[in-house]
């Protein structure tokens, strides 16, 4: 077993990993860019090392500084979290060369599943349904045989980047050129391929644990169909209406890849129930807590056990329903563009069945330097309706002021009839903008009056008391 783990990440996932490390009696090392010096993950760790870089996000991508930090602190393992270097086979190799255990799959398995074309080939070999795809080596005309609409994807891609929808032959060449240039820019690899577009699909995925020697177990399914800008916003476990054979297909892929550690096999499910392999995510996912809540398992602890060579346990039973909402600094009414500001008031929900994985604190500045994810609300209930009520309660209790968030939008979305029915697909948000209703006059006036009374000058005019004494320390009275 490892004794000290450097967590090569920030925000909520770094905090979440460190909490398990503490429970297991393993020391934790935080890394941070100076802009994150007051961030919760730095306070939560046993030790901390500053990463220096002019660009904040680049600090967390600097393999050399991360490995030097392992050496400096004597960390014998590294947890990559998600994003950043979590799916870099080269970095996993560098860790191995430095004698640091990389908590994740082997570089070989990462490479195999990380390339979409080789992953598709693997899936097809074990009999998992894959889309009829065409690797595009010309200006796109080779893909036209698939018919329209088409989806063009980057071979090295993921996370929706480099993805283009082509609705007719006229736009094919232009979109292929755009997809190639995005793929080159994001992944350093211009290869693209085309497949038929499935309209209104669901996004289902299987959480797997592999032992790296051909063994794998499934920890149930997740429905992650609620997306905006190709990124997940709400996830739930277990998924409803899982097509027969889907979980077995995921296991066959994980086993054939000799996949080690925690991973996710993603599928697209058409409205008629047919499904296709999408990709493998070779890391802990943002949405892993919903699986933890319905299985009672700690996935980070499971990752550490696998990294220590322990055998896989028997697959867990699934209890109830869990839902996660990603609370992001963004403006749903402006195409979900990221928002910035200082978090002046932060009140987190509590109570039975509510888990909050937060990476922020009151007083923290939210900038464009990092991802917009602030925190995750995760609820668990005996049934989906109970979980939905609990999520609405949690969203109502949550207070984030000082930066715009998607919390109110998520409450409207969860209250909407399609979501309540479970009638979800990846285009739901795009098709249902769900603008906020204008406030009734009394509420609107209350908002204006409350806002006005936040102004020291208005307060002076209203109450004629010396404001410094009225607002410093404790409660106003």
């Amino acid at each position, binding site marked *: 077993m490892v004794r000290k783990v450097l967590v090569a990440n920030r925000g909520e996932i770094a905090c979440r990993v460190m909490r398990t490390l503490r429970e297991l009696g393993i020391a934790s090392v935080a890394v941070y860019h100076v802009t994150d010096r007051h961030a919760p993950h730095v306070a939560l760790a046993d030790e901390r090392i500053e990463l220096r870089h002019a660009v904040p996000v680049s600090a967390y991508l600097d393999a050399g500084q991360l490995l030097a930090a392992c050496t400096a602190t004597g960390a014998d393992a590294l947890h990559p979290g998600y994003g950043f270097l979590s799916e870099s086979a080269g970095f996993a190799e560098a860790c191995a060369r430095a004698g640091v255990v990389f908590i994740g799959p082997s570089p070989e398995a990462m490479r195999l599943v990380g390339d979409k074309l080789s992953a598709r080939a693997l899936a097809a070999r074990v009999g998992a349904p894959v889309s009829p795809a065409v690797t595009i080596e010309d200006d796109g005309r080779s893909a036209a045989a698939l018919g329209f609409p088409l989806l063009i994807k980057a071979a090295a891609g993921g996370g929706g980047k480099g993805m283009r929808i082509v609705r007719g032959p006229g736009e094919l060449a232009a979109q292929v050129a755009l997809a190639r240039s995005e793929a080159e820019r994001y992944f350093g690899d211009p290869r693209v391929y085309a497949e038929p577009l499935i309209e209104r699909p669901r996004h289902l995925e299987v959480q797997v644990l592999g032992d790296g020697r051909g063994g794998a177990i499934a920890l149930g399914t997740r429905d992650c169909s609620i997306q905006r800008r190709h990124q997940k916003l709400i996830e739930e476990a277990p998924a409803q209406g899982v097509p027969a054979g889907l979980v077995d297909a995921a296991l066959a892929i994980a086993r054939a890849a000799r996949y080690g550690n925690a991973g996710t096999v993603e599928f697209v499910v058409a409205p008629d129930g047919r499904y296709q392999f999408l990709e493998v995510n070779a890391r802990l996912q943002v949405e892993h807590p919903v699986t933890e809540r319905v299985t009672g398992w700690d996935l980070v602890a499971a990752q550490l056990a696998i990294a220590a060579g322990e055998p896989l346990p028997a697959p867990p039973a699934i209890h109830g329903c869990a839902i996660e909402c990603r609370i992001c600094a963004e403006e749903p009414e402006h195409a979900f563009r990221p928002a910035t*500001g*200082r978090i*002046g*008031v932060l*009140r987190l929900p509590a109570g039975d069945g509510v888990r909050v994985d937060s990476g922020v604190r009151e007083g923290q500045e939210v900038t464009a330097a990092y991802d917009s994810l602030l925190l995750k609300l995760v609820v668990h209930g005996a049934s989906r309706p109970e979980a939905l009520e609990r999520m609405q309660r949690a*969203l*109502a209790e949550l*207070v*984030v*002021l*000082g930066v*715009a*968030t998607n*919390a*109110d939008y998520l*409450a409207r979305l969860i209250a909407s009839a399609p979501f309540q029915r479970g009638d979800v697909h990846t285009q739901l948000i795009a098709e249902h903008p769900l603008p*906020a209703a204008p*406030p009734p*006059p*009394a*509420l*609107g*006036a*209350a*908002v*204006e*009056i*409350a*806002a*006005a*009374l*936040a*102004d*020291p*000058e*208005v307060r*002076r*005019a*209203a*109450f004629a008391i010396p*404001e410094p004494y009225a607002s410093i320390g*404790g*409660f*106003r*009275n």
Partner: protein
Amino acid sequence: MTAAIVGRNPLRFRVDDREYTVAELAAPDGEFALVIDGVRVTGHRHDAGDRVFVRIAGRTFVVPRAGRAAGAAGAASRGELRAEMPGRVVRHHARPGQRVAAGDPLVTVESMKLQLVIAADRDAIVAALPVAEHATFDRGDVLASLEDDA
């Protein structure tokens, strides 16, 4: 839609051509509690400078504050920018009669060793800058008065 004070004792605000009687109750940091026309209204509130975040009844509203003066002064009545603490005028940035836009600097003052810029809270014409450069002022003194550009 903004709220303007139209009476005191009891405190009254006008919003959108309707008037409301308002009393304020004590509230912890980050919260507020008002009684508006006899109805208790509570929520969370954060003053982010150029905008105020207000959360009531499970909804969060962002109320922009146009041309808010930074620092030591604000609009006590619509035409006047008054000092919030004693100090000294360092510099005028405008002359009486000059047309200014919301946010334009009017006066730089020094209070408690900090320099602060008093800015116009709306598009207007400068009516007066009553305190001369280098002169001192007291809390509540008018630093600038504006009149509507009509």
